[in-house]
């Protein structure tokens, strides 16, 4: 008999917690950095109120790292954990492609993309029935996880890189791809709040689905459900 597979591979578990820590620190130090200039612009440049498309609120100390206003200290955290975020995502993606996690659990089949299946999944979620779907994750989970892993976090990394003038000199095409440095800064801000929204929904669903078992499995790996009575 083959060795029983764990519910979460060791690479997934390590990345999950490293990534969680990095995102929390980057988000909160990012709010501190945002306080240094609370306007967002589109295009290459911008510094005047009339050029801005959004004036963002001042974020209070309890929401920022450090817990007082310091652009220098907040940048220290941001500069350090941007590397953690980027390289841990790269390592996770490589292992998830090779161990089949991406193909098996994250990418959805054509059948799953059918509107009837998505609609059924929405209805089940509204009934608070989370235990459904053929694979490990249902279609709404797949969409959210793929959206975060393949779109939102890479968007954060690349827009962050565009904002580094030294990086921009090396890869100027990336700035153009995002429509200019200030556009990249705006997208960085928007993607950060979309990630925050994911974080809130993720926590609420873990709480609804039984937080002790969910968190335990993300630490120990857990068992694949129904693995014991699998027949030939």
């Amino acid at each position, binding site marked *: 008999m083959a060795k029983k597979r764990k519910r979460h591979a060791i690479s997934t578990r390590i990345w999950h917690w490293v990534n969680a820590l990095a995102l929390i620190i980057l988000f909160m130090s990012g709010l501190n950095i945002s306080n240094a200039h609370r306007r967002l612009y589109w295009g290459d*440049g911008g510094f005047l109120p009339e050029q801005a498309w959004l004036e963002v609120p001042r974020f209070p100390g309890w929401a920022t790292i450090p*817990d007082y206003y310091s652009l220098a*200290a907040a*940048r220290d955290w941001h*500069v350090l954990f941007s590397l953690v975020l980027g390289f841990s995502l790269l390592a996770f993606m490589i292992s998830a492609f090779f161990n089949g996690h991406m193909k098996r659990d994250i990418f959805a089949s054509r059948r799953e993309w059918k509107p009837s299946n998505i609609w059924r999944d929405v209805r089940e979620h509204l009934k608070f029935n989370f235990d459904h779907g053929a694979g490990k994750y249902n279609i709404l989970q797949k969409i959210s996880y793929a959206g975060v892993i393949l779109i939102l976090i890479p968007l954060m990394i690349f827009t962050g890189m565009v904002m580094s*003038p030294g*990086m921009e*000199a090396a890869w100027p095409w990336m700035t153009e791809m995002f429509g200019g440095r200030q556009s990249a800064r705006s997208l960085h801000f928007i993607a950060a709040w979309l990630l925050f929204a994911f974080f809130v929904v993720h926590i609420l669903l873990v709480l609804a689905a039984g937080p002790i078992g969910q968190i335990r499995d993300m630490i120990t790996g857990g068992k694949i459900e129904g693995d014991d009575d699998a027949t030939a």
Partner: protein
Amino acid sequence: MQRRNFLVAAGAAFVAGCSEIGKTNWFGKLVDGAEGWHRGLHRALGVGRIPMAPEYSRADLSPYFRGNGSLTVDTDAYRAAEAEGFANWRLAVGGLVDNPGELTMDDLRALPQRTQITRHDCVEGWSAIGEWTGPQLSRILETAGVQPEANFIIFRCADNLNGADYYESCDMDDAIHPQTIIAHQLNGEALPVRNGAPLRLRIERQLGYKHAKYLTGIEAVASLDGYGQGNGGYWEDRGYQWYAGI
């Protein structure tokens, strides 16, 4: 209720803990390491050519160029120099060079000029686009004959911010970069006082605080020790990264 109190307390402990960690020496060392990694990545990803900051057209110029930090120099000598249109301003060239000396404004204008429309990114987050004109620093250093022991160029400034003299520094890679110029013009006119009249550094692959204003001298040095608090710049002495390309 208890659970919520617990979460609030845990959150407060987390940010307070991070604030304390941020003040430790080992965290500072980690951050210095990360700064080096970013710098190494920027250099490695741009390998095979000279990485250049993007240049723009006149249509992209900002409505005006914002001034930040020191907006003038609060000394009688500077006010007197301003009154005479900075005709007698001098840029001292010294340190580890074979031919130390002083350059007049006419000397600087007589050198081959570079005009570049670039984007200035402040560490705070805003950007302004301006057209800068001046001689390349590499020309000045070439004439001065920089000695092989020199690892950095120090930029001395006339302005004093919150009681300390402003200064900056860069490595030789940035010093001889084609876009590193000693600008005396902004948007085709003499540099305005708020933007650093009569001379300011443009070091286009780094953030705004590196672009020292009100330049009085450049100095080739082996080490940054002994200048300011030894971190290579006014803002660097106040916790900001020395490599401001991040």
